[in-house]
């Protein structure tokens, strides 16, 4: 039995209900519209490829994240904080920006092939399964590293000191148990994210071999107006993502990725020259792999800023509004879900990871259509869907910090008669402020960079930045699109940095 000084269960239950309704409710009108197509052989092939690439991508991201997170956890150097922020950038990129950024490095005319040609070596082709995995690692390695880094940060400094005093090996005693708890969750989150990837998979996959389930959803909605078929495929994605999340939850429990990132722990075991060299190489390699394509894309975007249409400023304003709306929703839901935790909260927090934004957006619009004009609904629906999709990340960031705050001060607060809203506002949230800032930053940036649900339904004068970019690309204006892409990334990263900084200020 849980002690009675803990927070009430109803906010978590209510939030889980909201998540369930938002994630599953929109499928109802779609399914009622009738399923026009059964699942065929092509869908089975798509499902196989979807699972395979998601598993490979998540595995590679997690494996590579181990040395990176370890190096970042035990080294301090100038610009470490800035690097941590910048490492979040690939995760927040619109898919097409990420693809073009990677091609600037690995494409036929990219730097790698220019280098190979100079050495007299044959060209390297990025197209194929390896290209899909490379792109997904580029997008998700930072997330994996950040999740594992939080795991390292959660190992109390005293244990390292003790291990050093006793001459005990840090790896098997401290790091391995932490990884066993942290890795499954990181794997499941990235696996679910890669499940719903389709532009990246198709473009870099090199052809219909690399078709994901999400492409079939896209086809059903756009070309065939077969909303029921799309909803059935969306349920399939939920089932697969849900199974992965359940497996991960059983294998390990989540750790905070919000608190304690500011200072690396003093590490007596890693002072040798060899260890230093390895860490330097790992960090240097990651910086090169993650930031070089970004740098190349940014460089081109800077020269294209002058080519942007007037519409960019209105679009930036709308993007900001949608992002803030999504942030409010995601953080509220995550706080409610994280206060008491439990299986219900875990499930609700994992469900949206495998959601198809296109299906959710279409279903929501179908629901509100009798009451509101589509044009008026597009932006609120976008904020709603973005907020829902960001909730799992906000929850992962917040839950451990909330639990810690409650565990440390809940009993005292209860003995002082401090409960409900007042305890939340006076004790719990201030203590969890670093995680709160990180969660809000992540939610805002995810929303700002996502093309999201409104791509098919936004009307005149309703474009957000990623949509404006897509429209420019669709009208030959690739240069202007590169400029808008840069503004998008800058806005997403700026929002992330602002919220994250606000959170970290708490400890200063």
């Amino acid at each position: 039995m849980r002690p009675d000084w803990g927070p009430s269960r109803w906010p978590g239950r209510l939030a889980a209900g909201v998540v369930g309704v938002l994630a599953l409710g929109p499928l109802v009108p779609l399914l009622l519209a009738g399923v026009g197509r059964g699942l065929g052989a092509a869908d089975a092939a798509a499902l196989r490829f979807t699972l395979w690439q998601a598993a490979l991508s998540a595995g590679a991201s997690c494996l590579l994240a181990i040395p990176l997170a370890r190096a970042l956890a035990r080294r301090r150097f100038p610009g470490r904080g800035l690097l941590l922020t910048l490492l979040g950038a690939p995760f927040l990129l619109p898919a097409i920006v990420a693809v073009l950024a990677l091609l600037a490095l690995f494409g036929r005319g990219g730097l790698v092939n220019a280098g190979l040609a100079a050495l007299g070596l044959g060209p390297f082709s990025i197209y194929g399964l390896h290209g899909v995995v490379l792109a997904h690692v580029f997008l998700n390695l930072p997330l994996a590293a950040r999740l594992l880094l939080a795991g390292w940060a959660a190992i109390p400094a005293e244990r390292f000191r003790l291990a050093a005093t006793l001459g005990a090996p840090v790896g098997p005693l401290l790091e391995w148990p932490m990884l066993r708890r942290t890795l499954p969750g990181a794997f499941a989150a990235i696996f679910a994210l890669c499940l719903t990837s389709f532009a990246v998979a198709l473009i870099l996959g090199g052809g219909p071999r690399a078709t994901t389930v999400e492409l079939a959803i896209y086809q059903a909605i756009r070309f065939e107006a077969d909303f029921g078929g799309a909803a059935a495929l969306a349920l399939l994605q939920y089932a697969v993502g849900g199974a992965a999340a359940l497996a991960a939850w059983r294998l390990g429990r989540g750790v905070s990725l919000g608190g304690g990132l500011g200072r690396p722990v003093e590490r007596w075991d890693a002072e040798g020259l060899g260890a230093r060299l390895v860490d330097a190489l790992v960090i240097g390699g990651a910086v090169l792999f993650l930031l070089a394509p970004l740098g190349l894309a940014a460089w081109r975007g800077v020269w294209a800023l002058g080519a942007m249409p007037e519409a960019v400023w209105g679009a930036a304003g709308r993007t900001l509004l949608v992002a803030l709306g999504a942030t409010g929703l995601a953080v509220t839901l995550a706080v409610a879900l994280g206060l008491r935790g439990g299986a219900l909260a875990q499930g609700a927090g994992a469900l949206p990871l495998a959601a198809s934004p296109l299906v959710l957006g279409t279903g929501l619009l179908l629901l509100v259509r009798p009451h509101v004009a589509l044009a008026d609904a597009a932006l609120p629906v976008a904020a709603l869907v973005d907020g829902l999709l960001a909730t799992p990340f906000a929850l992962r960031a917040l839950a451990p910090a909330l639990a810690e705050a409650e565990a440390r001060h809940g009993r005292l607060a209860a003995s002082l008669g401090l409960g409900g809203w007042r305890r939340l506002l006076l004790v719990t949230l201030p203590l969890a402020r670093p995680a709160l800032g990180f969660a809000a930053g992540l939610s805002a940036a995810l929303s700002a960079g996502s093309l999201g649900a409104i791509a098919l339904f936004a009307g005149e004068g309703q474009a957000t930045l990623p949509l404006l970019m897509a429209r420019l690309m669709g009208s030959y204006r690739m240069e202007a699109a590169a400029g808008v892409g840069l503004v998008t990334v800058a806005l997403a990263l700026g929002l992330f940095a602002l919220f994250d900084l606000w959170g970290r200020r708490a400890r200063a």
Partner: protein
Amino acid sequence: MRHVLPLLLLAAPALAQEAERPVLRVLTYDSFVSEWGPGPAIEAAFEARCGCDLRWEAGGDGAALLARLALEGEGAADVVLGLDTNLVEAARATGLFAPHGIEAEFDLPVAWEDDMFLPFDWGWFALVGRAGGPTPRSFRELAASDATLLIQDPRSSTPGLGLVLWIEAAYGDEAPALWADLADNIVTVTPGWSEAYGLFLEGEADLVLSYSTSPAYHLLAEGDEGFVALPMEEGHYLQVEVAGMLAATPVPDLARDFLSFMLSEDFQGVIPTTNWMYPAVTPEAGLPEGFESMRPARTLLFSPEEAAARRDAAVAAWRAALSR
């Protein structure tokens, strides 16, 4: 005062009209109404003559118009503009459209007869390459060469579907074999036109599936002569973009007026250099200098019924050949 009074008298009905101007809602794809598209000029020209308020309802790209129609039903708009020939059958099957009752002469490479849908522009699909790059003269020659090509997925993109029907129209039963031969030339398949074209401009392939008018954009808008559309011996598949009025519109006369206006000089004249397609009725001044860089010897096009009937099998053959 003597001068002001008549002015006031003149202005009064105008003000009254302002308050009760009828509204015409036109659903179209979003690049049509963007500030660089044909929308703004067309809106100004039509409002100047109709005494009405023309409102664009933009919804995604051309392929998504059908989804939008299915979602909104008869209240979607008064006029839908931008359906592609390959979607016409599905649009007709919604039962939402009404006969337009307009007689017109078109400057299309094929005869056009349809009581519900009127073309407003058209273009040939074409492979676009760089001047000085590989220029195969047929798909067979391309398949035998080591030239590289970027195409779009027929399951998510209109040009992608156009290419599959193009090969189907040109090769019939031999289409699957041709796709198998082309497989090693195809660098990758993108979800939409813009990704493929963007990759092409980045130098990821020699050729890209686009329109015969694409070089005109680079020439007229950017002053760049470096792009060519390749004439293919098999002929070129046609894309026709059409508009129709909804049966449930509360302003049927206004909708019909708009469809007539659509074929007039004021509408057609802005199409070439804003939508980068051929106007359905060539303006008196002709096409802009340099607009037509390549004119195919043959035009290929399935009727809407035939396209609808062949589509699934053709896409399945494409998928099977490229999945190997």
